[in-house]
């Protein structure tokens, strides 16, 4: 039995817009997602902002009801079995919100321990153990507002582990952390998976998923567009190369021109300070480089280079990012 399973999972948000003429608006966040995650797996869900990652996490953690389809965790229905399920799962949302800043870290943990209905004799042992493991021992009586971003995130994780969950949901847990803090957190998450916990991790950092996940799903516009191990995802671009350059002022028609070049799979344009970084995925970088002048005639190109594709390139191609 999968630890986490989604079958044709769909979620539509209904809202209104306008002040005097109220207009009903529907926004589809998930469009029939199918997913099966085995016990003990560290499963990553990758996707850009608004792709549906958080919505999916909230459905599994019983915070949201799907519009249709089924979501089960540990064999329990996330819609109807919420009380039994909440005792057996933990979740951590990224960012430094979600804590009582004016209380100490210890008070935060004690409060949630009682809300998770953990017996006091268990809480007395578990909280010091978690504080020790997550490097917060000695600072537990300080107010959370005095914690660094990394400490707050580790406190989040401690809170998520209070009930010793069998499945842990992590929604962009390293967002906003400095590189050292993010790496420390990734090590802890990997250790949790190695200890047998099923971990569901959403992120938009490809290297993070590549570094620690057993399997990955790439989600775009509420649909899963690819699923597999990091190495199998990389195969999407194994026969390709990448051409990159910087340019100042990239008109849309020139981007369209690049897309029309022979052998070009995708073109991504990302603003970088005053310039734009253009990344072209193609079957033959040498051929594309010789054709650049045809489309970008009169423009000054900087830092033109070609390289082997990475996992991030596979992700970019799957997402079809072009801004």
């Amino acid at each position: 039995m999968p630890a986490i399973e989604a079958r044709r999972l769909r979620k539509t948000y209904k809202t209104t817009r306008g002040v005097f003429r109220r207009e009903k608006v529907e926004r589809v966040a998930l469009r029939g997602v199918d997913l099966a995650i085995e016990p003990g797996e560290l499963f990553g869900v990758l996707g850009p902002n608004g792709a549906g990652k958080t919505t999916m996490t909230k459905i599994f953690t019983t915070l949201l009801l799907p519009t249709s389809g089924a979501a089960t965790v540990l064999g329990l229905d996330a819609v109807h079995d919420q009380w039994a399920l909440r005792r057996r799962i933990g979740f951590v949302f990224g960012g430094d919100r979600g804590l009582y800043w004016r209380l100490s870290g210890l008070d935060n943990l004690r409060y949630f321990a009682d809300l998770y209905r953990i017996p006091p004799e268990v809480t007395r042992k578990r909280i010091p153990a978690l504080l020790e493991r997550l490097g917060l021992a000695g600072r537990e009586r300080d107010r959370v507002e005095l914690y660094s971003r990394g400490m707050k995130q580790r406190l989040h994780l401690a809170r998520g582990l209070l009930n010793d969950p069998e499945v842990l949901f992590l929604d962009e847990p390293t967002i906003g952390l400095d590189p050292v803090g993010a790496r420390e957190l990734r090590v802890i998450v990997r250790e949790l998976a190695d200890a047998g916990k099923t971990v569901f991790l959403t992120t938009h950092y490809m290297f993070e998923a590549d570094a620690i996940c057993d399997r990955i799903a790439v989600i775009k516009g509420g649909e899963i567009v690819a699923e597999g191990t990091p190495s199998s995802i990389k195969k999407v671009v194994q026969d390709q190369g990448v051409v990159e350059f910087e340019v100042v002022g990239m008109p849309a028609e020139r981007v369209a021109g690049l897309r029309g070049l022979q052998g070009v799979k995708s073109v991504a344009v990302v603003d970088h300070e005053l310039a734009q970084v253009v990344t072209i995925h193609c079957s033959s970088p040498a051929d594309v480089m010789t054709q650049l002048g045809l489309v970008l005639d009169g423009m000054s190109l900087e830092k033109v280079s070609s390289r082997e594709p990475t996992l991030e390139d596979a992700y970019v191609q799957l997402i079809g990012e072009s801004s």
Partner: protein
Amino acid sequence: MSLIRAGWRAFVITIRMRVISTWSYLSWLVFPMLFTIVGLYVLSSGGASSSRLVYGVLGGGLIGYWSVAYLDAGNSIQDERWSGTLEQIFATPTPIWVILFGKVCAGLVFGLVSFLPNAALAYFGFHAVLPALDPWKFVISLGVLTLSFFCIALTLAPLFALWRWAFSMLNGFELGVYILCGFMFPIAALASWAQGVAGVLAPTWAVRALYASTVMQGPHDFTLWWLAAIGLSVVYLAGAYFLYGLVEREARVSGELALA
């Protein structure tokens, strides 16, 4: 047992958050004292009768009690939404009504405490006293009033969780109650239709009994007033039973527990 512990912890945490919040002192200490000062000044300057003066002695405290008891739980829900903890507490195995039970009780404690400085201010600042206080009837009436505040607060607080915009609407209800229920003046001064509305509000009957317990002239029908307040409170609680079921479901449909 674990639910009682969860409710108790919610109570303790709410008390601690309010003690360390400078702003909360405005609602349970400063504003009620301002009402008391104004009320006593107005009511004592014109040679008002002692039956009117008691509105000055108790009115500020009542307003403070109501404001804190009613709005504290709802406000803290709004605070939780802003700080991102509302989803965290909602997704625990403790039903939201247990958490709100603790929060509402904490509000009641602060509200009762706010009576003390107001009574002291009335006594020492204006030499105002309750002329014919019947302590037992006063205490029972205060208990019934507390029950009515508790039931209204517990019933309406989940609406703050359900809708982000509930705060502004329910804020208006706070003002309406202390006018309609006769906190600062007898409701006989209101239009007849307003008295009809006041009749379905449990605090109206409890406040009437409370003031009656401090003055001699009658007629007083304490039993009827207490039963009316208790009966209406029970009706509110019955409504709350359905409302909490609705909130548990609708909050999961709309996703409004989060800020965005």
